[in-house]
């Protein structure tokens, strides 16, 4: 509509009128953003210090947050449309992509650079120490254990979640209980790792011998006359048992995604294989697996990224004690408990370097398959 207006010849007007209209327009153009800003600012201040009941604060916060962002776009667009057409064409794209770029710059790009820089300095960021923090990360026993644990997470978590997901997808497909099984095995995906950790505390719980065992695993052992085991204190068994929680949570994801891919494998191809005398195992190994390989890779890399960055399960189950720490929990500890910014930063960079090839591979598989 703006463009149509611009093309139409304006009716002749007196100089005073034009001036007044121009000044009016400028005033309005200033007035509207200022009002928008004041409203948002007032909302922010109110939210920060309000003593209102929590429910009121929460409702206001939701409306203020969502409405505020929408309003910023509307106002920015409205302002841009007041500009002459050429300037509008130059500025409008940045009204659209600008906020995203600004946020990404502030939250990812600049922090990545700052963190890389900080990893070369000492705890207070005062003294340049070169690669000392990295040397420390790969030599300090606690750190080495963390890295070992992350490797355990990566290998066991990824292999078992994906492998069991694949096996279950094939099994469930042939069962009458497929819908029920899918829903129930997939359900843990909706549960937070923290919630899952609480659930699994009741599986791994340990009481000294002679006292009633309320943990499922020790109760089962007890039923066979075997003594209770303190599952979470001995390494590396404890890390493996924490990985079981991840597997419990992620197998359903692998199963459902791989199951969706299995539906796409043409039946004729499998039949042809069977007619040629292939056993079921050969059909699976030589025909099914290769045709859904890209999906398996996507699932495996997705879970691999998750295992490299694992944090919640360890924090909620053991707090990183008993040598269960991983890179992410140590990073948090270095940064926020010991306030050693340099070591924390080095660990964050190690994490970045570890996930980059996996994500790159994941993206390559993923491209063109989105949504």
């Amino acid at each position, binding site marked *: 509509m703006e463009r149509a207006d611009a093309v139409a010849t304006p009716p002749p007007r007196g100089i005073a009128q034009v001036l007044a209209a121009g000044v009016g327009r400028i005033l309005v153009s200033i007035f509207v953003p200022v009002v928008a800003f004041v409203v948002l600012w007032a909302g922010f201040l109110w939210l920060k210090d309000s003593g209102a009941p929590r429910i009121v604060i929460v409702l206001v916060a939701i409306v203020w947050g969502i409405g505020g962002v929408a309003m910023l776009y509307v106002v920015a667009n409205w302002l841009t449309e007041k500009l002459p057409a050429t300037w509008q064409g130059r500025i409008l794209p940045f009204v659209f992509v600008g906020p995203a770029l600004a946020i*990404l710059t502030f*939250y990812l790009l600049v*922090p990545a650079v700052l963190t890389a820089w900080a990893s070369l300095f000492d705890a207070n960021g005062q003294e340049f120490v070169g690669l000392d923090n990295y040397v420390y990360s790969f030599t300090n026993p606690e750190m080495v254990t963390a890295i070992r644990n992350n490797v355990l997470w990566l290998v066991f978590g990824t292999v078992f979640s994906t492998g069991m997901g694949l096996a279950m997808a094939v099994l469930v497909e042939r069962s*009458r209980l497929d819908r029920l099984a899918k829903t129930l095995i997939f359900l*843990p*995906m*909706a549960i937070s790792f923290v919630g899952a950790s609480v659930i699994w505390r009741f599986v791994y719980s340990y009481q000294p011998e002679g006292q009633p065992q309320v943990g499922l695993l020790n109760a089962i052992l007890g039923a066979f006359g075997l003594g209770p085991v303190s599952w979470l204190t001995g390494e590396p068994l404890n890390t493996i048992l924490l990985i079981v929680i991840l597997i419990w949570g992620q197998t359903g994801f692998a199963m459902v*995604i791989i199951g969706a891919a299995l539906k796409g494998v043409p039946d004729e191809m499998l039949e042809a294989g069977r007619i040629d005398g292939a056993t079921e195992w050969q059909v699976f190994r030589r025909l099914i697996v290769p045709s859904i390989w890209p999906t398996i890779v996507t699932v495996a890399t997705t879970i691999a990224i998750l295992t490299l960055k694992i944090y919640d399960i360890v924090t909620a189950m053991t707090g990183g004690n008993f040598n269960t720490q991983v890179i992410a929990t140590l990073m*948090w500890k270095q940064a926020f408990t010991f306030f050693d910014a340099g070591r*924390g930063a080095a660990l964050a960079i190690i994490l970045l370097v570890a996930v980059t090839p996996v994500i790159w591979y994941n993206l390559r598989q993923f491209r063109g398959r989105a949504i």
Partner: protein
Amino acid sequence: MRTIKWSRVAINLTVIALIVVWTVPTIGLFITSFRDKQAISNSGWWTVFTNPQGAFTLDNYQKVLFGGDGLATAFLNTLAVTIPAVVIPILIAAFAAYGFAWMDFPGRRILFITVVALLVVPLQIALIPVLKAYLAIDLNGTFLAVWLAHAGFGLALATYLLYNYISQLPKDIIESAALDGASHFTTFRRLILPLSMPALASFAIFQFLWVWNDLLVATTFLGTDQDVAVMTSRLVSMTGSRGQDWQLLTAGAFVSMIVPVMVFLALQRYFVKGLLAGSVKG
């Protein structure tokens, strides 16, 4: 014929066994959340089937929600964090995706590649620098701080996914809208947003789960003070500080699961799409 039948039985039995193994831990927690402290520490939850006395109490829920732990407040805080932290990044990403797909400006390609490249940055990298910046401008501990952080960490993926979708929309409708005199903004609001609903919804479900279940971002930028803390960080405090109050922990864990599990059960189909879409979250 007979062998096929037996393999059927074997498969069904295996599947039943798997279902049991997968559900028993959750059932155990569910039952435990209705038992009192005494019962929980004296006998396993499975004994309720043989010895149901004193098995059922709502005390744990009552206490954890409205007692000293104030999980009811944490529930509200989680809502206040989650809803905007889902909507805001989607809105911003949709604008950006449209801009990258349908507007022409210098540096478009290189800027878009930068956005995609940022997918590899783990959010751990941002914690310290962002926290420092927040403290400097006194923003830490506010909802806005967490929304923007979640937006920042979800935006690269959201923009990438929505770009894939929005750039595939038919060119004619967008051009004919421009011919009819619609501005970019009008086209975006009236045409692109409604047409992109499937992609928006898929990403929304994924982001919802991610934010609702997140511990790290909320703990860092919102803190663990009871007034503002979300449920996950309250639960972790409960496991740490008073690991023996299990009866409260179980009820608390269940309260924190209700919403995502309901969303999951109601939207399972979209959920799969959302997970597929969200598979590369940085």
